[in-house]
Every structure is written in structure tokens, then in C-alpha cells.
């Protein structure tokens, strides 16, 4: 999956987690904070992303994830495990 496709999927996923949010208002540069996620919401979002994409965010590295682009970059670096 190329970066554009992955980014679109992550954006659609994040938009689905917020009531009344349109995909077009989210970009790779959008921080979780700017989208209205507080620190606990972000933890929940990343957990949900793990479930949705089959990725596992490393315990230490997860603290550095602050934006949509950070998730996309992480997933490019650590491709999701193939589901059996």
C-alpha cells in the first residue's frame, strides 16, 4: 500500500472516531490535539488503530505519535502483521 492510500485509510479511520467530522478537514499534519483528542482519547485512538490495522504500537515509541502523519509513518516503518 502506498503512502497516499495508507494516509487516506488512516484519515477515514480517524474521522469515523469523531462525531460529525469530515475527512476533508483532516490532513497528515493534523495533530490529535487539533482534532479534539485529549491525551486519554489519543491512547484510545491508538488502541483502536491497532485493532483496525493489525499494527502494534511499541510502548515507548507510542509516546512520540502526535499526528496523523506520525501514525502513517509508523505503519510504513512497521508494516501490519499479515492476518492469518
Amino acid at each position, binding site marked *: 500500500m502506498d503512502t497516499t492510500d495508507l494516509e487516506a485509510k488512516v484519515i477515514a479511520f480517524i474521522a*469515523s*472516531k*469523531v*462525531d460529525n467530522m469530515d475527512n476533508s478537514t483532516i490532513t497528515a499534519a493534523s495533530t490529535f490535539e487539533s482534532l479534539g483528542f485529549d491525551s*486519554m*482519547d489519543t*491512547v*484510545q485512538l491508538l*488502541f*483502536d488503530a491497532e485493532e483496525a490495522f493489525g499494527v502494534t504500537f511499541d510502548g515507548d515509541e507510542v509516546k512520540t505519535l502526535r499526528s496523523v502523519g506520525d501514525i502513517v509513518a509508523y505503519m510504513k516503518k512497521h508494516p501490519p502483521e499479515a492476518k492469518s
Partner: protein
Amino acid sequence: MHIVVTGMGIVSPIGIGIDRFWENAVVGVNGIAGIQSFDASKQRSRVAGEVADFDPKTFLSAKQIDQTDRFAQLALHAANQAAQDAGSLTCYEPQRIAVSLGSGMGGFATFESSAARKIQNKSLPPFSVPRIMTNSAAAWIATQYGFRGANLTCSTACSSGANAIGMALDLLRTDKADAVIAGGAEACVLPMTMSGFEALMALSTGFNNDPAHASRPFAKGRDGFVMSEGAGILVLEREEAAKERNARIYARVAGYGCACDATHIVAPDTDGQAAAMRIAVEDAGVTLNQVEYINAHATSTPIGDIIETKAIKQLFGDHARQIAISATKSMIGHSIGASAAIGSIATIMTLHTGTIHPTINLDEADPECDLDYTPNQAVRKKVRTGMCNAFGFGGNNASIVFTTP
């Protein structure tokens, strides 16, 4: 000082909302069916009272749904109804509005799913703990409405909802609050929880092919209770203040009694049940002969319904045969910590409407259950004093007496 009920809300297998619930209760609608929410093919008891048409998305955001267990969602929906029914409480300081809820199991859906993940070495949802904790429903109600008074949760198994209403009565009588949101919520139609009750031989297992007849309090051939879910919430305040703000008054919460069997962790005891009823009647300032209606605990277990019958006869003597009794659980099953809150609503509606709902599936009573259980047909009768019973594991017995205002 009189404490009154000015708002009610309910989520039950026979209806969401007081009007729908009561219309169905009066005509004896069955709310029990084969379990839909999970694959129950491996359970010995495969029937339950589920709230099939409950959709949290209609009133909670995606984020709130992520952060709440189903039992808290049921409680919030019932609380929303009750708050709307009661009308504006802005005459009270937020610090003087309390919440007192009961739940036997708390967020057990989250507990079971989290435990399953842990066994598979998967990470847990970050809100596992705040979803599981039994006080989460009360906390969410307070957070939604900004109620900053006491925020209490009582977990006394099947009597949780009754004790929570009793605790609310105490808060108002001792001037620790001006209004209390009180009731109970439960959502444990779940594989592990049900397996636990199955192991105790407490659940009905003989009606898996005939769910509509599985919950049959006082009837011959009953073989255990039917697990169910739901929530019942009341708004309580002092009568004088309620009249001042022109609130509708459904009934007075006149008395509350609680007593522990102190004999066995699960087996019921006649003396303990009779003690709770006696204390509630005395607390209400009425005589035994004034009690005209009892919403029985009546779970449909072989022993429980006999013990309750004996306890009523032991306390009320000859008057026991004059009391109209009915079992809400015959229609909705046993919603554990919510059951007494729902039973209280049924009692209040009996006083408010002059109709006693039936005990369904009671074509032939157990010879040892020989009182008037209002079999199969509702009865029109003006009732001025009614009592709701709730008896739980741990020997916890609680009774609440309601009277007309």
C-alpha cells in the same frame, strides 16, 4: 418530612421508557427469548431478557461509547429519561444533587472481553478499568449533568438497586442532599457470568426451546432464574420542595428496611427477608395491614419463591392472603442489580395508575406458593401502600415501601 418520586426512567426487555414498559407489563408481555448478543450454544442456559432495541449511538458520542460499558449506557439512558421526566432541577445547587446507584456486577462485559484479550496476550483497551468499575455508571450520570453532590454506588448483588434507593432516602432525610438520582443498572447477559450462575444451578436450563415460559415465578416446574439486563432510575426529592417547583409527584418513598441473613452466602432465609420487610413497614409509619401490594423478588428459583412466600406469611400472618403480589421478573427475567429499581418503578406505577400487573406463566402454582400472585391477568385496584422486595446473595435483604402522596 416526606420524600417523593418526581421522575422515572427505564430500559427493560419489554420496553424502553416508562409508558412502553408499563403498557407491556400490564398486558403481560413476555421479554424472554433465545440469547442474541453472543453465541450461547455452549451455555446450559440459553435464554435471557435482552434489550434488543437499545442503541447507544442515539444518545452518546463515539468517544463516550468507547469509554462506557453497556451497564453504564443503560443507566445513562434511564437517567436521561428520569431527568427529563422530573423537569428542571436548577432550583437546587449542583453540590446538593446526589447520585445513588446499584449494580451487582458493574462493567462485566468489559471485564469478560478484557480477560479474553489478556489470555491471548493482546493489549487491553485503555478505558478497561473505568468501564469495569462498578461506580462508573453513577460517575457518568454526575458528569453528564454536573451533579456535584454525593456519588455513591452500592453493590449488594440482587438487592443493589433497592439499597441504592434506600441510601438515597437516607441522604434526603439527613439533609445531605436536596435531590437524588437513584436506581440500578446491570448488563450481564454474558458467557462467563452466566456460566458462573449455571455452576450454582441458579439459572433456568429446561426451557431453552421454550423461552417465553422460562421465567415462571411461583409456578410448578420452575427451574431457575432467567438472566436479564436493564436499568431503572428514579428522581427523589423532598415533597415540600417538589411541590414548590410544581413537579409531578408519582409516589412517596415512605420506608426502607435492610437486614442480613448472616446464615449462608447464597441460600435465602425466611427470617432475614421478614426482618427487612418489617423494618421497611415500621420505617414507613404504616401498619402491616395497610400493605396492599408487594412487588416480589420472585426470581423463579425453586427455593427462593417458597422462602419469600414463607417470609411474607411469617410477617403478615392472616393479612398475607389479602395482599396482591406480582412478579415483574416473570416477564423480564432477573436483571440482578437493576431488578429492584425496575420492581420499584412497577410498584410506583401500581400506586400511580391503580393497576397491578400480572405474574405471567402462572397457570398452576407450586402448592408451597399459596398466596395471591395476580396470575396472568392484571387487576384494577386502588393501592395506597406497596412494597418492593429485593433479596441478594450474601444474605442481603432490602425492602422499600411506597405510598400514595
